[in-house]
């Protein structure tokens, strides 16, 4: 490499796999000083994997990373920081009960082990001024700040490290438009100072406002970089999707019968406006929106797992009791959470005991479990989802993501569900198991169970659902039969109509 190497960062041929699953295949990124590069892609496309590699959270299997022409090993977060890389995380990594000033020196290399509060605060003020927070008292505890202020403090923390390369991982996901503007201003200022910026986002509007070039990730690989001036919103959307609906998805509803479930003026915390949905027998209703769009709150409310502010839900003409999850189950409402590890399965327990967890009392008399009946029902339900009968005594934690998800959905068959609510039905699930899960969901719908699916994967909703309802920032925005949507339209709809129209 000669001395006039123009690139601040060159990552070439980066690959990473987890077991048999490839998360990233031959990805390439180059970045010049003062340049803002936007990383785009759907969930699971590989953009967060490459960010994690560059900031030293995980190590790559193949490929090289050069900074200013020198090859570097970024196997730890410390090594990455030493190489001049800093990350503004999506989840706030500030410590709530410490002050703003204390958070600014937290985890910083080379920070002295003790600073007088006065010195701490004065150095903090200088840094805060650079992110437009000159009026903020550095001795305020971080937990008292607004979301936008926290995000700006997060950025200020990175500035305190004086990094050459700053990575922003969806910094605006939880912010309102006015707050986003503040963050974008700071990003522009950082670039003007000669720092290189990698900006990961789901919001297309921001890309056109701040980025110089765009790299789109798809199925774990990177597309060649594009100049923003050569791009349009439609071009970006097409490049992001880039795949066809194949045999992955089952047939559509043949007939749709009477209304099974209807929400009337439903209002839930975390959503804006009323949610009015109507689900007919044989129909799969698909809710879609980005993270934080409110679909989770709505699904949980119908399941009885979240407080309802106003409105009712009617199931087969009678009003559902939404006061607790237990009541929901007794009325035949099955609910699969979006994050099976967190609150969908019991990892340490066997498949059988996972399957029977919602309906154990049905196979028990006087509080004593009838183990024969339990095994028989669990085995019957497992066979519907093509779960290996010989592994019923295996811990769910030892199964693949696909099999875990089959257990998370399959366990509800035993409550004889009248409505099945599934969030993110195939997150982290391999293609083979995805097809099986889709097919079983369709079979349940055909057999008369009302099915509502919510997913942030627009392709999935388009392939599986008969009717699609879109949500943006907590509000229901559109409702149309699936065959009246095209994927670019749907992506544009959930990504914020105004931003795209602007």
């Amino acid at each position, binding site marked *: 490499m000669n001395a006039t190497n123009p690139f601040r960062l060159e990552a070439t041929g980066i690959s990473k796999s987890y077991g048999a699953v490839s998360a990233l295949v031959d990805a390439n990124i180059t970045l010049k000083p003062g340049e803002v590069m936007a990383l785009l892609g759907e969930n699971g496309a590989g953009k967060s994997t490459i960010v994690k590699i560059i900031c030293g959270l995980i190590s790559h299997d193949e490929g090289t990373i050069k900074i200013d022409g020198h090859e570097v090993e970024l196997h730890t977060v410390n090594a990455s920081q030493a190489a001049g890389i800093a990350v503004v995380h999506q989840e706030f990594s500030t410590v709530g009960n410490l002050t703003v000033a204390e958070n600014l020196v937290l985890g910083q290399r080379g920070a002295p082990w003790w600073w007088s509060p006065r010195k701490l605060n004065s150095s903090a003020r200088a840094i805060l001024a650079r992110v437009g927070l000159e009026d903020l008292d550095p001795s305020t505890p971080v937990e008292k700040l607004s979301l936008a202020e926290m995000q700006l403090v997060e950025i200020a923390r990175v500035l305190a490290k004086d990094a050459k390369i700053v990575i922003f991982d969806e910094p605006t996901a939880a912010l309102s438009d006015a707050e986003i503007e503040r963050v974008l201003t700071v990003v522009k200022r950082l670039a003007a100072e000669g720092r290189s910026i990698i900006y990961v986002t789901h919001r297309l509007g921001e890309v056109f406002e701040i980025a110089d070039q765009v790299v789109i990730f798809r199925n774990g690989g990177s597309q060649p970089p594009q100049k923003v001036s050569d791009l349009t919103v439609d071009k970006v959307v097409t490049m992001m999707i880039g795949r066809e609906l194949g045999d992955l998805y089952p047939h559509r509803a043949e007939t749709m019968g009477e209304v099974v479930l209807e929400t009337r003026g439903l209002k839930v915390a975390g959503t804006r406006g009323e949610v009015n949905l109507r689900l007919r027998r044989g129909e799969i209703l698909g809710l879609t929106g980005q993270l934080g769009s409110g679909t989770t709150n709505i699904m949980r409310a119908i*399941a009885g*797992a979240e407080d309802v502010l106003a409105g009712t839900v009617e199931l087969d003409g009678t009003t559902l009791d939404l006061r*607790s*999850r*237990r009541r*929901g*189950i*007794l009325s035949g409402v099955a*609910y699969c*959470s979006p994050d099976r590890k*967190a*609150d*969908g*399965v*019991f*990892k*340490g*327990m066997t498949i059988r*005991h996972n399957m*029977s*967890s*919602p309906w*154990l*009392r049905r196979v*028990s008399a006087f*509080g*004593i*479990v009838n*183990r024969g009946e339990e095994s028989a029902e669990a085995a019957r339900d497992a066979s519907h989802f093509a779960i290996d009968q010989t592994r019923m005594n295996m811990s769910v*934690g*030892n199964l693949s993501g696909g099999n875990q998800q089959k257990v998370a959905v399959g*366990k509800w068959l035993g409550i004889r569900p009248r409505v099945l609510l599934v969030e993110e039905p195939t997150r982290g699930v391999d293609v083979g198991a995805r097809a099986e899960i889709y097919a079983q969901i369709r079979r349940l719908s055909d057999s008369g169970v009302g099915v509502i699916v919510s997913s942030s994967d627009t392709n999935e909703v388009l392939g599986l659902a008969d009717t699609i309802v879109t949500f943006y920032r907590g509000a229901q925005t559109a409702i149309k039969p699936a065959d009246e949507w095209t994927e670019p339209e749907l992506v544009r709809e959930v990504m914020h109509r105004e931003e795209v129209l602007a």
Partner: protein
Amino acid sequence: MTTVQGSAIAFQERAGHRKAMDGTRNFALPILIVLVFIVASISVPQFLTFETIRAILLATSITGIMAAGMTAITLSGNLFSLGVTSSVVLSGVLFLWTTNATGSIFVGALAAILVALALGLGQGFIVGLGLNPVVVTLGAGAVIYGSTAMMTGGEVVQAETREAGRFATFAVADIPLPVLVLVAFTAVAWFLTERTTIGRDVHLVGWNRDTAKNSGISYMGTTIWAFLIFSVAIGVAAVMQVSQTLQVQADNFPELTMNVVAAVLIGGTAVSGGDGSPVKSVIGALFIATTAQIMVLAGVEQGTRLFVLGVVVVVLVITLHLLRRAGSR
């Protein structure tokens, strides 16, 4: 020895690393106890006598009953109750007072169990609201200790009739009643945790409280049940204990809480909840009692005894923890 190693390797290859780790974890303690017995019967004179075995079982009975009950709380993901001592003392006081007043040890025992249940219900309810179980049970322990001291005026409460000792002296074929009660209580606790809906809920809530909520299982209800199971153990153990001493004072049995917690830990029940069994905890109590008895027979001083026991507990618990981590990888 080589054949044992050979078959161990073949077993690992056949059933996989994880299963072998689980196997080691499940059978390590029983094997260790057998080894300790063999070594002790060869090296310590008078170890392998009926009297010694009887003494070990009797010593196991009190902590064993409570460890079996405590396992329900640990399984439910609520760590431990750290107010064991004061609850036992209060139950014991109630047993003696009621027995003295009515002349019936059965009414006395009933009173002891009822007061323990009331205390457990209150603590279970508060923990079920989401408060930290360690803080709640420590606090409750202090309050119970204080009220016992006030009620008794700090005086020793004495049994007025020798009738009160009947529970301790009664024996079937020379096996003392406390030992029989231990076996019966362990069997009941095992049945409750393994075969009933309540027991299954305890396991499920312990493994993953949020998944349990989504599956319609009440954390509050399950936690209360776990505390109630433990409370029965407290009441029964208090009756057995006081039947032996025939007197009780507010500051008695200071070592009980730690012994019970140590028995659960050595038994191998996961501190994080979900994984474990009351039977294992009783085996843990048996191990502690055996080790202590050997040292008594070998003439080890009390200070040294406590030190050695402490070291053994710490080493075993760390080993079990490492095995569990290796097994879950």
